[in-house]
């Protein structure tokens, strides 16, 4: 694991760099993909930017609120660059809320916007895997398989590599499906189903699962619920698209 790259006096945190690379790769695809879904690329780029800012600021606000007394004594620490004083889950939630509210205010259509963002989400997921690999997060359970890697005091499943491979497959799937004229929401829901299925499969090899309901790995029932939602969503939206008068219906008749 190489969490830090030392270049002379510079110590670069690799996981953060990989995540930034993922955001850059992802957003560079937005301008290309947005017109296909008749959405403004600039508006989507702004949305992602505002979401990122809201997420980071929100994560710090949530952390400071948790320790309000300590922060009250030294308010300037609120601006500390230390990433360990962030509340990540709250940050993600705040980012999603801000993206939803801003998207609605700018009258961005939900499903076409999600479709336009999907080719960006897929490579980002690969880079999340690379970030996990570089700092040893999301590690595997101890195993004796020949391809086990030595990590955190044991021979473990290289779950980070499985994660990269599965995210890569999902990306290839998205790349192949993205030009197919289907109904709004098709690309996003298809990727969501693939991502949830990957997590459901992968979680079995993880060594850091949170256990819930007695002996279940919490991420698996959650992934199952998302997978079921995506599959049902695909069906409902496909039926909606085939209803008389819809654009896809007309396209099919043309064929």
């Amino acid at each position: 694991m190489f969490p830090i790259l030392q270049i002379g006096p510079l110590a670069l945190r690799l996981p953060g760099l990989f995540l930034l690379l993922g955001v850059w790769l992802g957003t560079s695809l937005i301008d290309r993909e947005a017109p296909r879904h008749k959405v403004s690329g600039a508006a989507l780029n702004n949305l992602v930017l505002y979401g990122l800012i809201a997420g980071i600021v929100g994560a710090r606000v949530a952390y400071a609120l948790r320790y309000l007394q300590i922060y009250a004594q030294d308010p300037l620490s609120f601006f500390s660059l230390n990433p360990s004083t962030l509340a990540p889950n709250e940050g993600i939630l705040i980012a999603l809320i801000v993206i939803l509210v801003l998207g609605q205010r700018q009258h961005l259509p939900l499903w076409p916007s999600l479709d336009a963002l999907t080719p960006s989400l897929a490579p980002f997921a690969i880079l999340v895997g690379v970030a996990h690999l570089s700092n040893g997060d999301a590690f595997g359970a101890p195993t004796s398989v020949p391809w086990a890697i030595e990590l955190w005091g044991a021979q473990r499943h290289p779950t980070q590599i499985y994660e990269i491979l599965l995210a890569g497959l999902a990306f290839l799937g998205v790349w192949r499906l993205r030009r197919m004229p289907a109904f709004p929401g098709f690309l996003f829901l298809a990727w969501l189903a693939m991502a949830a299925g990957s997590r459901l499969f992968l979680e079995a090899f993880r060594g850091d699962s949170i256990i819930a309901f007695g002996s279940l790995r919490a991420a698996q029932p959650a992934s199952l619920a998302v997978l079921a939602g995506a599959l049902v969503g695909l069906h409902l939206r496909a039926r909606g698209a085939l209803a008389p008068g819809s654009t896809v219906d007309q396209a099919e008749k043309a064929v």
Partner: protein
Amino acid sequence: MERVARPGRQLRDAGSILGWISDPRRWLAFTTLVLLAGVGWTLRSSVPAGATTGGLTSSPRVGFTAPDFTLELLGGGQVSLSELRGQAVVVNLWASWCPPCRAEMPALQRVYEANRARGLEILAVNTTFQDTQAGAAAFVREFGLTFPIPLDRTGEVSRSYLLRALPTTFFIDRGGVIRKVVLGGPMSETTIQTTLEEVLRED
């Protein structure tokens, strides 16, 4: 290029996918099959609670038992991390020539004084293999540090803690499990204190 040149095939593909997804019987069968396989996989991969995280394995990572060490102290005597079970311990790896270490050490001292009564111990391990004992002693005098300063003369502890950046700080709970790792610095007093709250809270 090929697909762009043959839009007819594209639409037929789309039509077949659309038809497939919108056919209630076929899609219900597919969905049921996928979800049943998922439920089966979930049940097959269930494990008893406590079987997944690091637990008793020792490794310099959150959720694992902190690797034990015994080191000589600056000023005489020695200390073992395992002797401090029952106390929250901060292990800070530093060197006297490292600017962020200099910047954060006064904050560590203040936090130490404020929380000692709550069961806090700080082991500020000097990476003596890349520093000098005289340099470490002068540093300790300069900042008036009162917590123990173990000397890592061979670099063994730095290696077992996979030291990649100076300073690196490990927050260890009363059971000897690492709860937070902060790579680099300097940490502000607020950062140290808020991180400590999470460790001290767990009795």
